[in-house]
């Protein structure tokens, strides 16, 4: 078989089972593709020796075990936010330079237990704070897509920008991502791939470098909805090491992919019709609604009245949690420590270490978080934001109580923009990228981005489906219907 790196998870799994290829061949094809894709800056730490070793073991397992898990032998990339034993895990930050974890994150361990092969670590915004992968210590990841014949480098989105670029460019069969405000779904939409953030608590957060613990969730970034179902199942588990991990059985998500949405009630929230929304996004959304209707779903207009307040609430809660979580980077236990001047004490060590180790966006958010948690402002900002968060969650509970099965919205307010284009913009302009996705994190719900069309310049655009808590199986099945109807098959032309 040729072009093995271009396969999806399901196709590769079936090819392995049919004896048409081996894990070693799949892995070698991906490693070659990675070597030729330096211009995308997606893989920032390559692990070819680990990959070939895991592939050899997977091939042996596939031979001896007819019941080997679906992920067995499939080469994937791991976002740099996941701690991988003995392999650099820097969260895209200078402050974790040289850090080699002594342990494995639960999610990556689950994937390895299922036989998955790790090709390396993927670029991302520093500590997952960003929507364009431009805050990374490794430099920008680059979107494999371009605007027609224009050679301007575009962002793959963020924070899981390296994961998105790598999957879209066929450097791996799939990748892990994490999503705190949209960091799986926005880059998936910008690169024409599928990405799902499961219900909060589905994937263990243990060993995933913490950004905002009440919002962070891991999920797969894949070439199809079926692949997302396969990989999500392997990633999920109850984990006693994460106190918020859900002790619920993990369904067979792939088996639930009927794509039958007849009689399902799909909500269309009027508040997501933002002022100044580009016409192309409007059209994409209208087309998606028509596709679901044609597939037999009932389209219902709904209201989620507190939507407007989701981003401001997020920009209190996420920085507050980040300022607390990132207090651990003090130059004592791991990572970077600043060189000290004569007479410097421990306070100078902390201050210089953190000034050198954190980039500007991380510093900004840590300080905003510190401010909103400080005496005198805690009630006005932090407690108020948590109350608004309760109201945002209640908006969703109300529509689900009315019988809505899932909610269809745009995934992003635009297509991928040029790297550097937002450099002079106010930070709040960048935050608006997450306007459609952030509500889902605040409410703890599952959300999936599916590519459904392209803009005038040929760039991919995606729609988002939001599901009921713990009903990823149903959500994936609806997404499968949308994917089937949209028939999005475009791939970026190789220029790298």
């Amino acid at each position, binding site marked *: 078989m040729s072009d093995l790196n271009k396969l999806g998870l399901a196709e590769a799994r079936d090819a392995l089972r049919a004896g048409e290829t081996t894990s070693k061949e799949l892995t070698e094809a991906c490693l070659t593709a990675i070597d030729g894709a330096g211009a995308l800056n997606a893989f920032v730490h390559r692990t070819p020796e680990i990959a070939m070793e895991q592939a050899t073991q997977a091939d042996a397992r596939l031979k001896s075990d007819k019941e080997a898990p679906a992920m067995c032998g499939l080469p994937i990339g791991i976002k740099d936010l996941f701690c991988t034993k003995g392999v650099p895990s820097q969260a895209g930050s200078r402050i974790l330079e*040289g*850090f*080699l*974890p*002594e342990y494995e994150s639960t999610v990556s361990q689950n994937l390895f237990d299922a036989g998955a092969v790790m090709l390396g670590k993927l670029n991302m915004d520093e500590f997952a704070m960003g929507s364009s992968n431009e805050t990374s210590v490794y430099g920008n990841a680059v979107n494999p897509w371009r605007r027609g014949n224009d050679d301007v480098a575009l962002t793959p989105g963020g924070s899981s920008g390296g994961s998105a670029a790598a999957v879209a460019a066929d450097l791996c069969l799939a990748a892990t991502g994490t999503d705190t405000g949209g960091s799986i779904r926005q880059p998936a939409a910008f690169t024409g791939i599928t990405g799902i953030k499961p219900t*909060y*608590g589905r994937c263990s957060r243990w060993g995933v470098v913490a950004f905002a613990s*009440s919002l962070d969730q891991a999920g797969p970034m894949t070439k199809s909805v079926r692949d997302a179902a396969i990989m999500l199942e392997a990633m999920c588990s109850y984990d*006693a090491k994460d*106190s*918020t991990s*859900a002790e619920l059985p993990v369904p067979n998500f792939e088996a639930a992919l009927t794509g039958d949405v007849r009689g399902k009630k799909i909500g269309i929230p009027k508040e997501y019709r933002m002022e100044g929304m580009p016409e192309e996004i409007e059209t994409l959304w209208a087309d998606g609604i028509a596709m679901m209707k044609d597939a037999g779903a009932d389209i219902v207009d709904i209201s989620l009245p*507190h939507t407007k*307040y989701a*981003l*401001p*609430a997020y*920009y*209190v809660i996420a920085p507050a949690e980040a300022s607390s979580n990132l*207090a651990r980077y*003090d*130059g*004592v*236990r*791991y990572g970077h*420590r600043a060189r*000290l001047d004569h007479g*410097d*004490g*421990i*306070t*100078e*060590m*902390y*201050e*210089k270490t*953190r*000034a050198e180790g*954190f980039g500007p966006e991380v510093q*900004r958010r*840590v*300080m*905003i978080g*510190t*401010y909103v948690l*400080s005496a005198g402002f805690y009630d006005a*900002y932090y*407690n*108020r*934001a*948590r*109350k*608004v*968060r309760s*109201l945002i*969650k209640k908006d969703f509970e109300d529509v689900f109580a009315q019988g809505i099965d899932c909610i269809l919205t745009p995934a992003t307010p635009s297509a991928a923009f040029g790297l550097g284009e937002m450099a002079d913009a*106010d*930070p709040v302009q960048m935050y608006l990228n997450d306007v459609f996705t952030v509500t889902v994190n605040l*409410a*703890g719900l599952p959300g999936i981005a599916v590519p459904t069309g392209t803009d005038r310049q040929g760039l991919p655009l995606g729609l988002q489906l939001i599901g009921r808590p713990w009903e990823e199986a149903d959500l994936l099945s609806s997404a499968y219907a949308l994917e089937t109807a949209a028939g999005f098959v475009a791939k970026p032309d190789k220029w790298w």
Partner: protein
Amino acid sequence: MSIDENTAARVAKLARIKVEPEALPALAQEFNGILGFIEQLSEVDVEGVEPMTSVTPQRLKRREDVVTDGDQQDKVLKNAPDAREGFFAVPKVVE
């Protein structure tokens, strides 16, 4: 609520991030932009609303109060920028 340079300096100090004095005006301006955006939250009627503590209704699990981990000093110290004689080493803390 407008943030001046003194407040920005105080926040930087609380966050233990060294900010050079010449960078404070721009930092204060950025904070004001972000806080202005956050200010919208004051429009929301939150009377009688409980602040969210957990996004899923599950109760935090309890476990037996027993030692579950330990005896890995070498691993704990492995990534330390300065470890000596089984301890993390830091600059002098008390005079």
